[in-house]
């Protein structure tokens, strides 16, 4: 049986109050502390996607705060696509207005924004989905995207984790990029006030917002703090109202009477990868000494991880065991049986581990039996070093020879690009994405060079999956790939976690956000101040 690892009770308390109807009694500023974004800029296309201008800017498609599913709370009222999924047409909301009097949102703004986002200096995660896309303004409020290949998941590009944010063409024509740097006009119910470089960003409420739904708060201050102990100190001293805190520190804040608000849906998946498992026949770059090329070793490693303890240590007990990395109930190819089979096939079982290792004759018949576990520093993933040490504890216990290799994320990136990252390494917390994106990035040669696992069966299914536009068939193909991934122990999936914020209940009454952006938080206008 697949055991659900239950959330501790205190985190759910606040969610019920958070509906949008509640209005603040008095003027209220909410201060929110987060890690500094990787790139501090007002130009979204120069960031990897961790955009701090989320409170003021929007894409075409929005998300329902509770379910997280796509809805028309963005700039588009409705959309249609051609039968082959190569042509998508969006009807813009005619009432949508840019801030600071830059006028209505039109199709020209969308065309302009696509050009900015796909320019030579773009660094956006997922921008490959827009490669070769052509946007055409049909009329003022209708825009059509023509794609070089079918994209069933095209809405993803326009949603919370997407790659296209709508900037004002009128502002660009009048002021150029400098205008965006100084005072970028967005469309949401909070608007940009100022950026204090190295410190944060301020926003304020738009009075009588075009959407009819004004923000509940008057002012939002995002404060950048990189040291987690400092973030916690700011909360405990009640200097700020909301913080994003590493899991291991959350307990301290909860003990002191602060409360956790999780995203309504799981937001991220975590895993360890057996990188270098390029098992396509004839691939010359394969390093045959890697111990985990033997499926018995991959299974043994998976089974030596006590996931319940792991979730306690790394996520303060508030996460769920993840059966397949990349698979999510909200996306194509979800196979519920895999979750049911998990305990039997991946469960912590030292006897089985010993049997597998004996069967594989580990370490004697391995020329290079040492498992290098990577420990890295990456903003937003403070648990990586602890994760590496914990994995070493589990693997040592099972009798594996291990070593920890420390390396910063950029260097790991370079090795991954060179297909030389021969480590058992953690992955940047995977935001829940359409299945095709996850499969491409991790399990298929289509994601080369930076993938980590390839095999013939998956490749066969993937070719069909990429070409297919029949929903039932796609569902089945993606499911087939996930089943193969599961059965091959292609990775060591760890946990499915929600985005969480810790709030001061004296000042914050509630906040509902679906966990659909890369920073996890969104729907800032719906933060409800406490009575």
């Amino acid at each position, binding site marked *: 049986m697949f055991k659900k690892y239950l959330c501790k009770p205190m985190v759910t308390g606040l969610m019920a109050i958070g509906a949008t109807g509640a209005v603040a009694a008095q003027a209220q500023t909410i201060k929110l502390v987060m890690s500094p974004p990787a*790139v501090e*800029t007002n130009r979204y296309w120069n960031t990897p996607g961790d955009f701090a201008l989320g409170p003021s800017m929007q894409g075409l498609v929005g998300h329902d705060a509770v379910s997280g599913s796509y809805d028309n709370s963005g700039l588009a009222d409705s959309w249609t696509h051609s039968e082959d999924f190569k042509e998508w047409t969006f009807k813009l909301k005619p009432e949508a207005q840019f801030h600071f009097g830059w006028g209505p949102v039109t199709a020209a703004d969308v065309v302009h924004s696509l050009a900015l986002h796909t320019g030579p200096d773009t660094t956006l995660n*997922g921008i490959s989905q827009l490669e070769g896309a052509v946007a055409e303004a049909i009329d003022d409020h209708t825009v059509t995207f023509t794609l070089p290949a079918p994209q069933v998941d095209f809405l993803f590009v326009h949603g919370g984790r997407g790659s296209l944010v709508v900037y004002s063409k009128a502002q660009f024509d009048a002021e150029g990029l400098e205008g965006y740097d100084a005072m970028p006009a967005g469309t949401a119910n909070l608007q940009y006030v100022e950026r204090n470089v190295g410190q944060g960003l301020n926003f304020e409420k738009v009075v009588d917002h075009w959407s009819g739904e004004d923000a509940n708060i008057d002012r939002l201050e995002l404060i950048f703090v990189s040291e987690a102990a400092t973030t916690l100190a700011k909360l405990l001293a009640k200097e700020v109202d909301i913080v994003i805190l590493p899991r291991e520190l959350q307990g301290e804040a909860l003990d002191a009477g602060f409360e956790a608000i999780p995203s309504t849906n799981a937001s991220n998946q975590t895993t360890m990868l057996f990188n270098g498992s390029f098992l396509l026949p004839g691939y010359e770059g394969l390093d045959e000494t890697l111990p985990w090329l033997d499926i018995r070793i991959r299974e043994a490693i998976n089974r030596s991880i006590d996931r319940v303890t792991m979730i306690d240590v790394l996520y303060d007990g508030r996460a769920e065991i993840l059966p397949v990395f990349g698979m999510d109930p909200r996306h194509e190819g979800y196979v519920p049986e895999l979750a049911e089979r998990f305990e039997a096939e991946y469960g912590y079982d030292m006897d089985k581990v010993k049997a597998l290792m004996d069967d594989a004759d580990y370490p004697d018949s391995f020329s290079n039996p040492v498992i290098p576990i990577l420990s890295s520093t990456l903003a937003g993933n403070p648990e990586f070093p602890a994760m590496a040490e914990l994995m070493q504890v589990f693997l040592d216990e099972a009798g594996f020879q291990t070593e920890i290799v420390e390396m910063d994320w950029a260097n790991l990136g370079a090795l991954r690009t060179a297909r030389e990252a021969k480590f058992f390494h953690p992955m940047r917390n995977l935001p829940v994405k359409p299945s095709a994106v996850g499969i491409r*990035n991790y399990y298929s040669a289509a994601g080369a060079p930076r993938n980590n696992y390839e095999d013939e069966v998956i490749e066969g299914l993937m070719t069909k999956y990429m070409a297919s536009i029949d929903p039932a068939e796609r569902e089945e193909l993606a499911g087939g790939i996930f089943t193969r991934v599961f059965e091959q122990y292609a990775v060591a999936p760890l946990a499915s976690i929600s985005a969480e914020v810790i709030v001061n209940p004296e000042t914050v009454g509630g906040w509902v956000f679906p966990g659909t952006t890369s920073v996890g938080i969104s729907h800032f206008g719906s933060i409800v101040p406490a009575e």
Partner: protein
Amino acid sequence: MLRFVLTRLSQMLVSLLVITFIVFSLSHLTGSPIDSLLPDDATPQQIASLTEHLGLDRPYYVQYLTFLQNAAVGDFGDSTKWKGSTAAEVVLERLPATLQLGGLAVLISVVAAIPMGVMSAVRRGSIFDRMAGVVALLGQSLPAFWLGIVLMWIFAVILGWFPTSGYGGLTYMILPAVGMAWFQIAALTRLTRSAMLEVLDTEYVKLARIKGVNERQVIWKHAFRNAAIVPITYFGVLAGSLLTGSVVMETVFAWPGTGLLAIDAIRGRDFPVVQSVVLFFAVFYLLANFLVDVLYAIIDPRIRYG
């Protein structure tokens, strides 16, 4: 005198030139910024186009010469992490914060260390002397980041006397400045003490005492004035270590100065900013030491050498 100044100045320029080369090479050793800038699913075309966009495909020496040429006029290129600003703008924008904090730290260390050093010398071997020595040493005996966090917990979270962190007025500066200053106090106290001991031992001071000048005047007017030159020479070193100290304290206290900037820039492989900030640190240090040397030569002409 002029010759001395000119010699020191030219030496400084040579050092600076060598430093530019080291700085340039180093930041290129640290790997391509491409890997930290581009997303995980970057395509080869994307990699190639960004490489060209940043000029990273040109030969090494061409990049260095271009760098030197531009650096001479203060142009270090566009920041890759703070898009929309040049590297020099980014550094200049963060500079005042560091200078404010560093200035306060210098002030605190002087105000604490000079009297402590003088009194220790006057009461050599007393309990005060020994205690002062230990207190001064405490600051050097703890890792600065830990000292900073402990100060923050005690004085900001528990007692609530100061804000925990962030950029602001004097109240925001006190904790990080004390953290930075404490590290310096031991050295400055010790220097003052030994300089005072030497001066107190001179005929000049003994004579003043015999003449019946009151003790306070002997210490501060006669002795300290002559001893003060020694701590002054320390300011060159102080300047350098304050900048280094700013890296840690600014990180802990989220103080938006050049130290925090340097860390962010290295982690984000923002070459232009790394180069300008390291060069700035080096120039600042060289300049401070140059001034100290000149000052020293003016006060005590015997010292000229090199």
